[in-house]
C-alpha cells in the first residue's frame, strides 16, 4: 500500500519531467503562453466592439444588439453627434495629409541620404532617426512652443497637427525605404547610367520600381501611425473642432455615458483596416500587371525609342 502511494506521485513527476525535457516534443509551455497572449491581446478589443452594438446605454455589460450608437440615435450616435463624426473626419484628413506629404519627402530623403557621401550626409542620417526614439510628448511640447513662440504664422489646428504627424512619421519611411535600399546594389543605377540615362532617369526607371514594395509599405505605416497618434494631435489641437478620434477617446473615455465612443473607435478601426487592405490589394494588382521583368523591359523600350 505504502509503496504504491509513494510511487504514484513519483511516476507522475517523472512523466511531467519527461514531457518537458523531451527535445523532440512540442514546446507546450510556449504554445500555452503564445495562445494566452494572443487571446489577451485580441479579446478585449472584440468585447469593446461588441459593446458598440449594445441596444442599451451600458459600456460594460452586453445589452442586446442595435445600430443605435452608429446612426440610429438622433442625438448621441456617431453620425449625429458632431463631436464624434468631426473627430473621425479630422483623423482621416490628417492621415491623408500625412501620407501625401511624408511618403514623397521620406522616400527622397532615404534615397538621397543613401547615395550622397560626405560628412553632412552621415550627420543628417544620425539626426533623422532620433524622432523615432523620442517620446512623443517631447515632440508635442517642442512643436507647441515653436508654433506659439517662433513659427507664429502657423496656427494651431489642422496644419500644425499635420506638420507634427509628418515629422514623426518621416523617420518610419526612412527606416523602411533604407532597409530596402541596402538590399539593392548601386549596380542597377550604374547600368542604367551606362546605357545613357541621366541620374534622374536611373532613379525613376531603375530605383523607384524596385522600391515600390517599400513605398507602399511606408504609406500603410504612415497612415496607421497617423490614425493612431494621440499626443501630437492633442498638443497641437486648436479646439474641439480639431480633435481627432484618439483625442476624443481620451477626453470622453472616463466620462462617456454611452457606447457611442465604442462605436466611433470601432468605425475608425474598420476604416483603418479597409484602407490598409485596399492599399495591399491595389499594390498586388499593379505588380501583377507590370510583370516580373518590369524594369528591364521598360529600360529596353526606352533604349529603343
Amino acid at each position, binding site marked *: 500500500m505504502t509503496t504504491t502511494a509513494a510511487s504514484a506521485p513519483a511516476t507522475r513527476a517523472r512523466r511531467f519531467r519527461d514531457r518537458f525535457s523531451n527535445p523532440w516534443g512540442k514546446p507546450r509551455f510556449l504554445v500555452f503562453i503564445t495562445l494566452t497572449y494572443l487571446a489577451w491581446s485580441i479579446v478585449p478589443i472584440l468585447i469593446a466592439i461588441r459593446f458598440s452594438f449594445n441596444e442599451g446605454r451600458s459600456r460594460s455589460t452586453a445589452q442586446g444588439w442595435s445600430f443605435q450608437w452608429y446612426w440610429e440615435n438622433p442625438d448621441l450616435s456617431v453620425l449625429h453627434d458632431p463631436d464624434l463624426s468631426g473627430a473621425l473626419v479630422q483623423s482621416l484628413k490628417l492621415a491623408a495629409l500625412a501620407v501625401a506629404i511624408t511618403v514623397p519627402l521620406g522616400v527622397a530623403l532615404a534615397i538621397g541620404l543613401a547615395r550622397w557621401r560626405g560628412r553632412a550626409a552621415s550627420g543628417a542620417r544620425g539626426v533623422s532617426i532620433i524622432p523615432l526614439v523620442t517620446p512623443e510628448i517631447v515632440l508635442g511640447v517642442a512643436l507647441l512652443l515653436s508654433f506659439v513662440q517662433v513659427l507664429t504664422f502657423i496656427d494651431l489646428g489642422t496644419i500644425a497637427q499635420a506638420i507634427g504627424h509628418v515629422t514623426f512619421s518621416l523617420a518610419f519611411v526612412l527606416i523602411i525605404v533604407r532597409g530596402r535600399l541596402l538590399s539593392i546594389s548601386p549596380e542597377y543605377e550604374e547600368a542604367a547610367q551606362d546605357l545613357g540615362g541621366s541620374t*534622374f532617369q536611373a532613379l525613376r526607371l531603375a530605383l523607384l520600381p524596385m522600391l515600390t514594395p517599400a513605398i507602399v509599405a511606408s504609406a500603410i505605416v504612415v497612415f496607421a501611425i497617423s490614425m493612431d497618434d494621440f499626443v501630437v494631435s492633442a498638443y497641437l489641437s486648436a479646439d474641439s473642432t480639431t480633435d481627432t478620434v484618439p483625442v476624443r477617446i481620451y477626453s470622453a473615455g472616463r466620462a462617456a455615458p454611452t457606447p457611442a465612443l465604442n462605436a466611433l473607435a470601432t468605425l475608425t478601426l474598420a476604416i483603418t483596416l479597409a484602407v490598409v487592405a485596399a492599399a495591399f490589394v491595389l499594390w498586388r494588382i499593379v505588380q501583377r500587371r507590370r510583370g516580373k521583368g518590369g524594369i528591364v523591359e521598360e529600360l529596353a523600350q526606352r533604349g529603343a525609342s
Partner: protein
Amino acid sequence: MSEVTRRRQAFWAGLALPGVAWQAVFFLLPFYVIVCVAFGTVDPIFQTPRPAWNPLTWDPQAFEFVFEGLFSSGGSLQRVFIRTFVYVAIAVALSLAIAYPVAYFVARHGGRWKGILLVGLVAPFFISYLMRMLAWINLLQDDGWVNDVLLWAGILDAPRNWLDGRASSVILGLVYGYVPFMILTLYAFLDRIDRSLLEAARDLGASPSRAFRLVTLPLSTPAVLAGCAIIALPMFGDYYTPDLLSGSPNTSLIGNQITQYILGGPQQNVGAALVVVLMMMLSILLAYYVIATARAERRLQR
C-alpha cells in the same frame, strides 16, 4: 572627384535636401525652442513664457525649481520621478517576460501557423492605442467583466473599483499598450538567428536548454536591450494611460507633470525644463539605441 561624380553627388544631396530642411525646421529648431523657454522667464502679467533666445541671457530659475523638487526628499516631483521609474521598470520586465517566449515560439516553432500568428502579433499596430485603453476601461468598470470573472471565480468577495488610482491598472495598461512593439523587435531578431549554430551546439552534445542558454540567449541580448529601449522610451512620456486607467494624482507620472505645466498652468518654463531633464535622462537610452541600430545596419551592409 570627376565632374560627373560631383554632379551626381549634387543630385543626391538635392534629393535629400527637402527632408533635411524639414527636420531642421520642425525637429531641431523646436528642440532649441524648448531649451530657450526652459531657460527663460514668465511674463508676470500675462503668465506667458518669455523665452531667452540668447544663450548668454539664459536664466536657470526653472531648472532650480525642478531640481529643488527633485532632490529635496519627499518633494512631489521626486515622488513622481521615482514612481515613473518603478512603473516603467515593472512594465518593461513584465513585457519582456511575455514578449520573449511569444517571439521565440513564433520564430522557432511557428511552422505552418507562422503566417496567422504573425497577423495576430501585428494586429495591435492597426488598433489605436487609445481604443485599446478604452477596451480596458470597459472591462475594468465596477460592473465590468473583469469583476464578473473574479467574483465568479471566488477571488473577490465584492466588486472592486479598478479605475480609481491603482498602480496595478496603470501597469497593466502600459504592458498591454507597449508589449507588441517588443514582441516584433524580438521576433525580427530571433527569426534571423542562424539555425545551423543551434544544430552545431546540439551535435556537440548540448541539451536543448543548454543550447538555448549558450547560443540563442547571448545572440539575442542586443535585441532584448533594443526591445526594452523601444518600449521604455514612450512609457517615460506617457500620460494618457494613467489618466484613462486611474485619473488619480497617486499614479501621476512625469508625462502628467509635463502636461500639467505646459497645457494647464502658468509655468510653461518649468514644463519645458522638465522636458529637458527627461531628455537628458533618456539620452543614455537613446544613444544606446542609435549606436546599436547603426552597428546592426553595418553588419547587414557587409
